[in-house]
């Protein structure tokens, strides 16, 4: 590790050079492997992914191309006790966020109580007036959530983002595990790794539990995809297949007499639950974006009438908006009466003049993000940017301060990773996947994303990040 990185928490090796206990067996195993063995396994895994078609589309100049997300064969390990804390914190958070969304579209108690500014909600692009007064089954709005978490020390975890719209990546979590079990059975004999393969079952149970009450017996579930050119199409097909439900496009569904039907080779079949991977704006051209060819005309009326469940509900973006993010600790306290178990990253909201002034002064040390951005696009990472990049970004920021938030550059923890020059630490984050229905179900582990470039803090797959299998050890 280079000298400027000495403050970084290494999840395998502690400062004095000892291997931390969750990694004790893996550390030994890594040392005993032939030089070249892991590299061969890595290539084997990539060939397997390619054959399976586990790819994502990258949009750049010209046509979209299919790429593999680089896979790192060294697993990341989380101990049982670390996971207990994380999962308790995540559960608290997703319950509070769902309560928040319900409140925001009903009495707005939290605004009346003065805990969150009204304009931040009402004028927010992610706030959907069409949802006002609507209560979905079990009062759940965000059913499928991917909570992005980073670690900076043995006991400090921060929530970076709550993805409450249509989080993706769970198929990589599952395929990474399959691949690892296939390639390194001996490692699984040595460790008690909490299984994750039942995720599709849990997802189906969750979706069944939130079907409209009158048809909850054996509801028909579908996964709605924008189609084969969407960057996450593989995942849509994968989840539908694993759950044993149809993967549909907008044109496969239609509304008739207050219900949604799918077009089949026989009689049309009524649909009860739509797990949609289409953004709000494209869901229903009659209610939202009239130019959308991806959605189902009239589906929103069926939804408002309570005849279909849409997961996640339209309008859940209000809960993972970056401007709302700073209030999540208040949101947790307001709805649960408890202190947050997981901390937020300290955040400056540039809409606030004082905070904006601080941000402008300290750009070289901060990470600045667009409020509505995602995928690592349109952000500034101060410490790794040139003076010119910073001054150009500064102009954009000054032109529209309320479009940005800023955070300190976190020293993301690092995990052992296979590089050209052997095993070396690389920065990681973690996205556990959470299901909310009749109960909260959290799959142990999640997707670890790793910045493969030395020193890099950007883990997004669109920016050269890779993924790792993530193990939660059982006691």
């Amino acid at each position, binding site marked *: 590790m280079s000298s400027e990185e000495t403050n970084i928490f290494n999840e395998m090796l502690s400062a004095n050079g000892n291997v931390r206990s969750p990694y004790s067996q893996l550390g030994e195993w890594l040392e005993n492997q032939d030089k070249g063995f892991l590299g061969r396994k890595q290539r084997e895994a990539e060939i397997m992914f390619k054959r*399976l*078609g586990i790819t994502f589309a990258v949009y750049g100049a010209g046509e979209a191309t299919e790429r593999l997300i680089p896979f790192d064969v060294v697993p990341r390990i989380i101990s049982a006790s670390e996971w207990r804390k994380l999962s308790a914190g995540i559960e608290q958070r997703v319950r509070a966020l769902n309560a928040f969304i319900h409140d925001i579209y009903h009495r707005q108690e939290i605004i009346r109580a003065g805990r969150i500014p009204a304009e931040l909600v009402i004028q927010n692009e992610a706030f959907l007036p069409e949802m006002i007064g609507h209560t979905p089954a079990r009062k759940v709005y965000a059913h499928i959530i991917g909570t992005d978490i980073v670690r900076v020390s043995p006991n400090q975890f921060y929530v970076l983002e709550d993805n409450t719209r249509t989080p993706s990546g769970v198929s990589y979590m599952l395929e990474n595990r399959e691949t690892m079990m296939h390639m390194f059975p001996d490692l699984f004999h040595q460790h008690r790794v909490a299984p994750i393969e039942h995720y599709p079952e849990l997802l189906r149970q969750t979706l069944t539990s939130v079907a409209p009450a009158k048809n909850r017996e054996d509801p028909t579930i579908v996964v709605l995809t924008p189609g084969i050119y969407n960057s996450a199409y593989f995942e849509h*097909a*994968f989840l*539908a297949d694993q759950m044993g439900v*149809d993967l549909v*496009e907008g044109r*496969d569904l239609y509304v008739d007499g207050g219900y949604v039907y799918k077009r089949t*080779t*026989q009689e049309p079949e009524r649909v009860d639950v739509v797990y949609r991977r289409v953004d709000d704006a494209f869901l229903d051209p009659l209610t939202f974006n009239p130019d959308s060819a991806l959605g189902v005309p009239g589906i929103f009326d069926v939804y408002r009438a309570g005849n279909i469940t849409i997961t996640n509900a339209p309008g859940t973006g209000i809960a993972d908006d970056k401007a709302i993010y700073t209030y999540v600790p208040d949101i947790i306290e307001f709805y649960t009466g408890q202190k947050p178990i997981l901390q937020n990253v300290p955040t400056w909201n540039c809409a606030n003049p004082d905070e904006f002034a601080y941000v402008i002064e300290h750009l070289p040390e901060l990470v600045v993000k667009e409020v509505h951005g995602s995928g690592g696009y349109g952000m500034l990472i101060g410490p790794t940017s040139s003076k010119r990049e910073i001054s150009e970004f500064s102009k954009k920021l000054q032109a529209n301060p309320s479009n940005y938030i800023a955070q300190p550059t976190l020293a993301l923890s690092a995990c052992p990773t296979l590089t050209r020059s052997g095993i070396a630490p690389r920065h990681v984050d973690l996205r556990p996947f959470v299901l909310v229905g009749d109960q909260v179900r959290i799959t142990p582990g999640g997707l670890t994303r790793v910045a493969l470039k030395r020193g890099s803090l950007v883990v997004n797959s669109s920016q050269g990040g890779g993924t790792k299998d993530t193990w939660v050890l059982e006691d």
Partner: protein
Amino acid sequence: MLGRTAASLFWLCRQIERSENLARLLDVGYRVAMLPSSGEGHREEWRSTLISAGCEEGFREKYDELTERAAINYMLFDMDNSGSIRCCLHAARNNAKAVRTALTSEMWESLNTTWLEFSELRAQNMTSNRLPEVLSWIKQRSMLFRGAMLGTMLRDDTYYFSQLGAFMERGDNTARILDVKYHLLLPDNEIVGGGVDRYQWSAILRSVSAHRSYRWVYGDKANQPWYVAEFMMLNQIMPRSLVHCYSWITESLLGIENLYQEKSQSAAVASDLFQKLRTSKMDDIFADGLHEFLTEFLVSQNGLSSQIAEDYHFY
């Protein structure tokens, strides 16, 4: 099952079957062009290959001159030619992506690998020595897909729609080859059974992978036009004959009827066609004109295709 899924399975299997048939056609064209007798005639051979593949018109619009290299490139790689092998495999893979949940992983992986490896082929590297190897690879990939389908797919409607696509394409292909080649081989007043180059006849049989099985079935009878046509149309044990294709098409449509517990117009149409092929005699077919018979067959088959799309809500 979604109507779109049924349509995609149907088309996907047609496209794969088509890629295999195209590879066979190219292979034959290539062989015939190598014969010492062909000389200048090899140009005509490539023309008839293009016609059999149904893309001669498109070729003429694009090229002023017919060369072997241009013909091969056009049929193998050209994305402007919707009937090229590349277009077929590309469309098949897109259809497969769209219906991944209806395919077994073995089917998907075989097709996906075919496309990935095919994408790495470059027209400029397609030397004469390499071509036969590539064509045989394409045929094998199609057979691998088919094997994966037969070995792993549930015998439900997904299977029946897949089989329908494959056999309709196969029947279509056999009828077209016979129609085109037969007329080229029997110009104007040539009498059936006349002195036609026997290599040409064996080429027709090769283009449906039947040059050896013909021998087994017809023994020492030379490659007579009469028998070749009978073999390709009316012989029930020949797996690419029209009547064989229709026994599968009918069986698939009856299978769907049975599964859905509902009679369909398309099953009735297919049964009629099957019955007709089963009871036809070569004497009558030649008396009324082979070309007329095949044309009528292709028209009926198109009608059946539309009827299937209507009955099972393809879109």
